[in-house]
């Protein structure tokens, strides 16, 4: 592991330990509590819940998650390109810098326009 990441790893372990330790410590120093079963029912504005949480949810969420995934991959492809862009310009490869990525973005633009027309981004209906 590159040496610069070791403090980061230790930092991550420290950050992970902080809420865990606090939760465990607080469990023992908290004052006790009373009250019976009604206290533990799910909160629904004071109305007693009738069914367990199993109502059907809209499939729009699935579409949004899939599209997010795809555009996220596009973003990750853009990061290495952005990092080397200026060095390509400095080496006078401007066309090589721009054209491949524009082709990539163009193909995805076609997809995006189709999704727009199809109404895939609509969460209302």
């Amino acid at each position, binding site marked *: 592991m590159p040496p610069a990441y070791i*403090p980061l790893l230790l930092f991550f372990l420290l950050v992970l330990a902080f809420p865990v330790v606090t939760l465990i410590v607080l469990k023992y120093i908290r004052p006790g509590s009373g009250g019976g079963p009604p206290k533990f029912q799910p909160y629904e504005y004071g109305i007693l819940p009738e069914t367990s949480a199993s109502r059907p949810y809209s499939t729009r969420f699935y579409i949004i998650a899939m599209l997010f995934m795809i555009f996220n991959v596009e973003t990750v492809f853009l990061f290495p390109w952005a990092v080397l862009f200026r060095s390509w310009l400095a080496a006078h490869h401007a066309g090589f810098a721009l054209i491949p990525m524009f082709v990539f973005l163009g193909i995805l633009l076609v997809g995006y326009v189709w999704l727009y027309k199809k109404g895939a*981004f609509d969460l209302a209906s």
Partner: protein
Amino acid sequence: MLHSILAFVQAWWVELLCALLIVLVVPLIAVYIALVERKFMADVQARPDPMRVGPHGLLQQIPDALKLLFKEDLIPANADQFIFWFAPVLSMTAALTSMGAVAFGPWFQVARDINIGLLFVVGVSALRPLGIILGGWASNNHYSIIGALRSTAQLISYETTAGFALVSGFLLAGTLNVRAIVEIQRTDQAWFVFLAPVGFFIYLIASIVETNREPFDLPETKSELVAGSIAEYGGFRWLLYFLAEYANRIVVASVGTTLFLGGWLRPFPNVRWLIWLDAAPTLLLAAVGAYCVFRAGKQPAREQSLFMWAVALACFVVAAIFALAAPFGHLPFELMHNGLYGAFWLLFKVSAYIYISMWLRFTLPRFRFDQFTRLGWHILIPLAVINVVGVSIALALSSEFGINRWVATFITTVAAIGAAMLLLHWNDKYSDAASAALLADSSVVEGTHAG
């Protein structure tokens, strides 16, 4: 074994100190940002702010936090114990770990000079939606799950937008290393906000959405979904979510500041005759100290008066430290100068960023859920991609054809704004058509439409 550990600590003590400071100080800063927000909100809404606890209400958040620590820890029946326990911890861990790669000055960062710098921050922030959706699901509550789904949908829609906006910044920087990004802004003599203003604007909006602030906080509004996905979390667990949210605000503000606003550079770092701006931190702190002395006499209670004197003393001491670190050109003053002044300017800009987002919170009405999904997918994503294309063309024009980079930036910014107008126009036409179609579909109006 012990010898190698000692050698390691000696080589990396700045980073380890920074790590410790972040874990200890950031929760405190987060609660104080909440206090500033309460005071600002009261000012905007023309009502009194917390003034009783401590002088001027400055100690208000401490009893609030202590109260939360000792509140009863209620786990609802049929809730998933393991995930109920794990989700707030995940949120908090993701928020604080992403601060690891943020540089609070040329010498203060936990991950020194890592190759992927700012991308590490962005990447670990991608764990944010997981904490929310797991928390919502674990509560075994209809409204929590719906709130969690909506909140996550909102976050993921704008995460790509933020990524594209950051790409335009990375194009200008040519590197992901945090320290190098700020150095390039110094040598290029322009903050990237001036070279990619549309990118900064999109990132500002996306970061406000990412941290669930008004006007985009429908998934967690008090009147709609009772705090949505975190409805069943009380006491310390809620405090973890709260700290995670405010730490996220600091993180996105730091990323925006580092990439677009010049990080820890003072305004006009290369202009010699503006070097008197270096005295600004000292003067500012001395002015705050003087104000505290002035107000100390007017406090109603003696303890509050004493506390004000203590705050004034602290301000003067810190101002003296800053004055000592003035550029004498010798170590360790040089180190102090770079570190302290840099940290001051960075925190100043981060505070300005957070202040702007608070300002937007108190003045704009809330977006409806489908309105901001449309804003994200129909307008901001294409605009962000157009912005990336524009910035790359501007860079290519200025390097290949010798066009002045400001002219090229101006042309591409105008083109991007034109594209934004077109996108807004198309979106309006589209949403009118969609609403008309919805109204024509009688099953929706009568409420028999499924889903």
